């Protein structure tokens, strides 16, 4: 886990999506969420405190609110006092229901945030658990770069000094977007996705050999950066000593394992005076074409096999006619 996961952080991140509103106990926003689980404290409100887990956020829905509203005010105060004394991260009332006055009072006294949402209990819990599981999910820091190229997150890796930063710089210069340079935090999230962001607290800076630290936002503007991106393609820059052109026709899709997910992989040869950024760009375009079912290498091979099987002598326009060239 990269940093402390506080109620405040969750609230700021999700307040619009979950239509959250702070009712009382704002000084308790700094409390920490330590588990992705949430609790509906029905039995607790009935006075059964065994197995009550105060580490969980407590969610009160229609049933819970209906139950406590049937209690005598003194009993309501008592049960909320007992519950809030257990020190949970926060309490949420769903469906836009009015939180009972005793609960508001106890949340102030215990300095525990009381929040309200218009969402149904089920949707609220489902979205909250997904968010928290992502936050608490496994993460990994990689010595690599992450760029968004034509909408695809491309993780650029390779040995130190091979030119990853220069490649990134050229991609940004060509209109693509910067996500992270040098160190990428990868997170495995639900739905078999790997998402990356910068490992540096100060995002959008990069070190360029010979120039020093530059600010990507200042130089290239706000549209040249994004904070995080799902990884769709892995590109490894390789020097001439590592690159063996093992029949690189593109007939087979190479893959690489990243945080338990298989991702398409390309190896980009780097040589002095050549631009790996253009190769990364074209590899990404080919990746997009393949995703749409256009497998260039296979189409080419099929056309070639038809030509071979036709028994025609070579030399006469092998792949179709000139009918698409109307401009002469």
């Amino acid at each position, binding site marked *: 886990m990269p940093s402390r996961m506080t109620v405040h952080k969750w609230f700021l991140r999700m307040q619009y999506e979950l239509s959250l509103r702070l009712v009382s106990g704002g000084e308790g926003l700094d409390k920490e969420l330590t588990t992705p689980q949430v609790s509906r404290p029905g039995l607790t409100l009935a006075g059964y405190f065994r197995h009550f887990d105060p580490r969980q956020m407590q969610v009160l829905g229609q049933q819970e609110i209906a139950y406590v509203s049937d209690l005598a005010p003194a009993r309501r105060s008592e049960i909320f006092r007992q519950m809030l004394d257990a020190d949970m991260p926060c309490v949420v009332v769903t469906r836009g229901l009015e939180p009972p006055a005793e609960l508001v009072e106890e949340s102030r006294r215990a300095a525990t945030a009381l929040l309200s949402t218009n969402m149904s209990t089920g949707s609220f819990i489902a979205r909250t658990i997904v968010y928290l599981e992502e936050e608490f999910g496994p993460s990994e820091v990689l010595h690599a770069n992450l760029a968004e190229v034509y909408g695809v997150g491309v993780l650029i890796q390779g040995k130190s000094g091979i030119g990853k930063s220069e490649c990134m710089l050229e991609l940004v210069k060509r209109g693509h977007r910067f996500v992270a340079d040098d160190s990428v935090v990868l997170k495995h999230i639900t739905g078999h996705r790997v998402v990356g962001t910068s490992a540096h607290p100060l995002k959008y800076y990069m070190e360029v050999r010979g120039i020093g630290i530059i600010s990507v936002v200042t130089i290239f503007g706000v549209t040249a950066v994004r904070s995080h991106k799902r990884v769709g393609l892995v590109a490894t820059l390789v020097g001439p000593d590592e690159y063996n*052109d*093992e*029949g*690189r*026709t593109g*007939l087979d899709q190479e893959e690489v394992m990243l945080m338990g997910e298989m991702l398409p992989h390309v190896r980009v040869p780097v040589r002095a005076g050549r631009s790996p950024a253009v190769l990364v760009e074209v590899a990404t375009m080919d990746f997009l074409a393949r995703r749409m079912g256009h497998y260039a*290498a296979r189409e*080419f*091979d099929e056309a*070639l*096999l038809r*030509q*071979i*099987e036709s*028994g*025609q*002598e*070579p*030399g006469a326009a*092998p792949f179709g006619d000139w009918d698409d060239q109307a401009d002469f």
Partner: protein
Amino acid sequence: MATEHAAQVVVLNERGIHLHVASLLAREAAAFAADVFLRRGDVTANAKSVMSLALLAAPCGTELELSASGDDAEAAVTRLARRFAEKFDAP
């Protein structure tokens, strides 16, 4: 000293010089400094280029003229002629 060498080779791969075979052939040829060519009738292909080899559209049984020029031309012709006979270890 630059020399020139040539030999006749026959395509033994069942489906001819399709993309996979072309890529294996190009890789073998690229290991030599010499320029390596394959001729079928009027068409001459640069053996180091997959796209060029595709122009040959050579089916199984085609006879090709293999030629090379450069310092290691003889080694290139010897090696590639053997690899044709071995079908480049491919179908």
